[in-house]
């Protein structure tokens, strides 16, 4: 069996069998599990495809596993306080942790604590990066979500306190979940709140685009990759689907069923705490406090699979399967350094020597310069090449091909000749 493309990573609050486990998205079978402790909500994250990080529930440390060594805890990172939420940047360079009301930003390569952002008034509930790691959004129990520019936060200018780029303050009760769409700084952010609304914002301008009012509090939110649908997990166990763009053409209106049943996924009996959509937008994963993780077919709104847990589900997410996950012999590219607990390690005589320049390079920073447009061009030419070759053939390829074909014709002729000779011999043989 080949390794799956996407896997489900989930954790529950009891942690009886394992801390977190990996399931195959399509068969639902348990592939791997990682032991030791249990993880708090919205704190399980995959770092760079090599480590799994999970904040211990109610304690002040983060559990770290190497992704291929399933059973052993690799290390514990001790933090200044209880970690409410945790996220690693998609490029694998930074880790953000929400500890009490402050956001802590660590750099993976050195373990330095780069910034402590305390602009929230109450505990943080959720942290999310944009897909290009240029921005992150922090949501707290003080009803506000802040959008930060990572570059401006990282700047080592001690005289300037980092300011959030935008303050999203239209919610009237604590924010429960945030989802960041694709497209980097042009992405849209969906925030869910206990005030029964889900709001959609734009990162670039900080403006609110949409606000949907439900009749229950919303505990989790996600968008599908195309941003056609907004999925909202309610506190009564139903999952609402809001369609964001009208795809239905008038000609197939005759077959539409009633609106109500059409747009709600029913099955959970308690708070739906986590939602995630697969890469192709056909499967929806939901985790709930009723101790189950369910997989839904988005098109037909049916529950396809139900994975039982031993405690309230705290994390459930569909991730692309990291390459290292199924190779027991692989090794992480970098070893995790010790994470410092204070802002300026150089002053305490550890870490980087004073005056030394600190150079930070992305692991894929250099070769991933290709823009989307270039990528598109490349793909397009590739596709064209395939079709062209099959129809016309071009350049040297065609030369090679022609010679190949001539060769084949020659062989066939030879065979034909042989056959002819053989048969003439057979026929003309005087018996």
């Amino acid at each position: 069996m080949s390794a799956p493309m996407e896997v489900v990573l989930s954790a529950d609050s009891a942690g009886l069998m394992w801390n977190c486990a990996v399931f195959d998205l399509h068969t639902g079978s348990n592939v791997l599990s990682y032991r030791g402790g249990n993880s708090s909500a919205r704190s399980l994250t995959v770092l760079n495809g090599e480590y799994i990080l999970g904040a211990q529930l109610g304690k002040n440390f983060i559990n770290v596993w190497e992704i291929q060594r399933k059973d052993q805890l690799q290390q514990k990172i001790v933090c200044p306080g209880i970690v409410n939420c945790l996220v690693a940047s998609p490029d694998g360079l930074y880790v953000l942790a929400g500890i009490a009301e402050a956001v802590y930003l660590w750099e993976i390569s050195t373990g330095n604590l780069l910034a402590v952002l305390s602009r929230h008034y109450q505990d943080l509930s959720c942290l999310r990066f944009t897909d290009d790691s240029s921005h992150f959004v922090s949501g707290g129990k003080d009803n506000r979500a802040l959008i930060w520019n990572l570059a401006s936060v990282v700047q080592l200018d001690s005289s300037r306190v980092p300011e959030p780029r935008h303050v999203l303050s239209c919610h009237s009760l604590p924010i429960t979940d945030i989802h960041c769409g694709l497209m980097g700084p042009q992405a849209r952010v969906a925030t869910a709140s206990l005030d029964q609304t889900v709001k959609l914002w734009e990162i670039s301008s900080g403006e609110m685009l949409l606000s949907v009012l439900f009749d229950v509090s919303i505990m989790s939110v996600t968008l599908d990759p195309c941003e056609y649908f907004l999925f909202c997990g309610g506190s009564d166990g139903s999952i609402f689907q809001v369609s964001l763009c009208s795809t239905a053409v008038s000609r197939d209106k005759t077959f539409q069923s009633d609106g109500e049943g059409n747009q709600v996924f029913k099955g959970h009996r308690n708070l739906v705490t986590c939602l995630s959509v697969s890469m192709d937008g056909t499967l929806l994963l939901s985790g709930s406090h009723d101790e189950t993780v369910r997989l839904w077919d988005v098109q037909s709104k049916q529950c396809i699979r139900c994975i039982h847990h031993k405690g309230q589900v705290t994390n459930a997410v569909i991730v692309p399967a990291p390459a290292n996950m199924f190779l027991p012999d692989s090794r992480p590219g970098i070893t995790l350094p010790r994470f410092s607990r204070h802002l300026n390690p150089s002053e305490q005589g550890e870490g980087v020597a004073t005056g030394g320049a600190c150079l930070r390079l992305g692991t894929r920073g250099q070769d991933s310069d290709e823009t989307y447009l270039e990528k598109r061009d490349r793909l397009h030419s590739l596709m064209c090449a395939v079709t062209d070759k099959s129809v016309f053939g071009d350049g040297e390829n065609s030369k090679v091909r022609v010679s190949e074909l001539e060769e084949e014709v020659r062989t066939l002729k030879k065979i034909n000749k042989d056959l002819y000779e053989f048969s003439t011999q057979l026929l003309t043989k005087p018996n």
Partner: protein
Amino acid sequence: MTKKRKRQDDFHKVKLKVGKKKPKVENATNVNFRSKRIHLPEQLNRDDGGPTTHRQLSIKDLLSQLHHYNSTVKQDALQGLRELLASHPYLVEQQASTVLPEVAALFTDKDGGVRVAATRLLRFLAQCIPAEHVAPFFPLLSAHLTCAMTHIAPGIQEDALRVLDVLLEHYPALLSQRHAVLLANFLELISQRRMGGAGGGARGGAGGDKGAGKGSYALSISTSRSVTAQQWRLTVLLRLSRFLQAVVEERPTEDRAEGAGFLSVWGGEKAVVTPLEVTWEEQACRTGAVRVFENSGAKPTPHSTYRLRPETEPGAGVSEGLCSAETVQGFAETLVPLLLEVWVEAMGGDRAPSDSGHLLSEEAMALMFQILTILQLLRRLAPHRDQQDMLDAWFRNSYLNEFKQHFMKNFPYCQLEIARHKKKTDAKRNRQQVVGGAAASGNVEPLALNVMLCQVMVSLSLRGRGHVTGQDADWLGPIRAFVTDTLSNGGKLGSKQLAALLEVVWRMIITQQSRLVTEELLQAVYIQYQQRNLGLPVRTLLLRFFSQLYIQEHQNHPHIARSRMLARWLASVPVQLVQLGSRNPQLSAQLLQTVQSAAAWGNNDVLRNLQAHACNIYDPQEGCIVVLPAELQQHLVQILYFMPAFPADVLACLSHACNTGRVSASLATALIRTVHLRSPLSGWSSSSHDVPVRDVDYLSFLFSTLTGFSSEGLRELQQADEEGLLPASALSPLSVFSTPLQQFTHHWDVVEEVCHCLETLGSRVQCFEILQNAIIKNLCGLVVLPDCVCAAMLRCVPRLLDVNFLPSDTLLHFLSDCSLSMLSLLLQLEQSARKRDAVWEACFAALSTVPRLLRLLLQSLRVCDLCEEELPLLAQLLSLLLQHTQLRNHMAANNALLQTIIQDLTRFYGSETREQWLTDLLYCYSVTLSGHRANMAVRDIY
């Protein structure tokens, strides 16, 4: 011969003689007739080509007369035009293209009367034609206006200002687009260009030598004018300030909130995107999708704060005059020295400089006020906020010293009282006001002047880190003293003055960054705030000031956050909320917004006071939760989430509030959910160290909400003898009190939510046990029960019952009594569909989930105790139970019991004839049982 004679006969000569009457000629016309004229005006009009004035002049004639050399004719023609257009309004539309250019050409007419008439006609036209119809002719109009404004004759210049007035009044947007040209004209009106060797009246004035270096303009006076130089300048500056106001307000750029008025500083920035607001129910019903993204989301919106490349606007044309800070700066560079000169002349012009320099005459005060207004508006001309800051810094660098020297020297200005003794001056003043065109320019209060001065000066103070303590103290000190005095001396202030003062306070607090200053100023504002009997706008302003100061600024400025005055105000907010009651929902909304933000941000002062007054706020009788409008109630419920603790008395209040009809059912469910989320039992709040809701309190809250009636209420009900009461009988062991439909449905919704909360509490068995004890303890002994309570119990027990748990007999007996009573109530009373459905659902759910309940119910039916009339009722009830598919199996299981009942029924029913109900019952019975047997048979086959 004969020939001759004949000829004579033919030409017979009549001899006329003197004195004799002239004989009548044969061919004479008889004139004995009378003619009458037939007047056909319409016909004539058509021929003529248009309507005419009372002088029979058509529009063509009139227009041609406008070019007449005689001014009286022109004046008459203008009047005629006005008359004609007024009587035929449709002509205005038709002839606008011809009339407007002609009229505009007369702005520069030599004769004053013609100009006045032209202005009048223009005013009339402006009233009739909307701005978009004038737009094509506006270049022409403004060209003529410019021509008039720069005319050499002073009379024409004066009248040009009137034309400007008209245009400003009616077409501010169009006029402000031409500001590039017009602003220069204003300068020309009061000054002269230095370049070409300053002519006749030009003189340097006090600030002239300074101005010589920078500006190329110098103040001018001309002796030929009918008014004094100061009055003339006042009229010009008044127009200039109005014009700038129009420019600021009509600017099409993004920051519209900037120009919105005095409150803009703390008004916050408005969102440029109007978000879609959708509720789930609408969305679900409509089946259509929400359109969120423009351009299907491919392009980012133009409101992005990222500017990737400088935007070049090719077609901007005229409107780019004042779009950047640089152009504004350039204009200010020429204008400000002039204004300073005017100021100096106004100061010194009246009288010899003496120690009473702060006393001003009325005219000087008006002039100064206009100067300050213009300075203030200049600041606001810059379109972006960052540009505004830049402009402020530039002003500070270039003019701080001059401003300090001139404006601040005699700072708190007062009015010089002059006895109005001369009639002549009065007459002159009247005339002046006619020229000024507005009475407002005449009477400027000294307070307004001082406040405006504060605004201008304070905007010069530095913002940000470059500030050194003690810098600027020399001139900020008096301002601060003035503001503090004005606010705290107990006088009542108008809302406009107060808004300006508060703006000054806001700016000073932010720029000074000193705790001492902040305390002093806030103290003064607080004194003002504490006054009684303030008008509503004033009160709103003060409230907004404090709440916005807290919400917007306190995070960025630690000195504001630590201010004790602000803390004191915040602490008093919950009390004010209680005291305000339902009197003014707008103020309550403002207070609530503050409380909600402060509570969400964990402000201890507010939370402590909120906790202390929670019982009053959430009082079910007259607390804010019931008296305020629905949207504010929602805020109150949301604030509940942030309460540090829920003592038992608060929970009791909340439970009552849920069940009074004054809180809507959806809000009540939100309230229950909020308390549920705060309870540790819900498993949502992870922090375990503090327990906001004790489990005991929470469960009793849920139970009392479930019941919907307080224990006192139920006790009273036992004694009460109301008409809604159904007396107890053999068929209804409890006497049921029928509640109004509205209350029943409200309670039903609440019950649903409570059941949901109870379901998610964790261990079901324990939860049910607690509920069972509570029911047995509180409800089982009662004889009279409201129907909603019965329905609630029947609803929640089967939902919560775990298969492994055996409910106690007492509970089951109680429930069977409940269900029997409810069923018979339904059969006896005419109920609404909603209520009946709810009760049916509850009863059948209970009976089908708990099989023992059905058995108990059947056992309690003793036919021998029934009287004659009740027999049909019983039969109906039984047939209903038999018809229900879910109950069929259970009924069949109790077959023996059923059989005896039916036998008893037939026996006790003595009548000979078999009634319909009995037939029905027997039929149902046989069908159910046979169906059941068939089912059994089918099951056997499998």
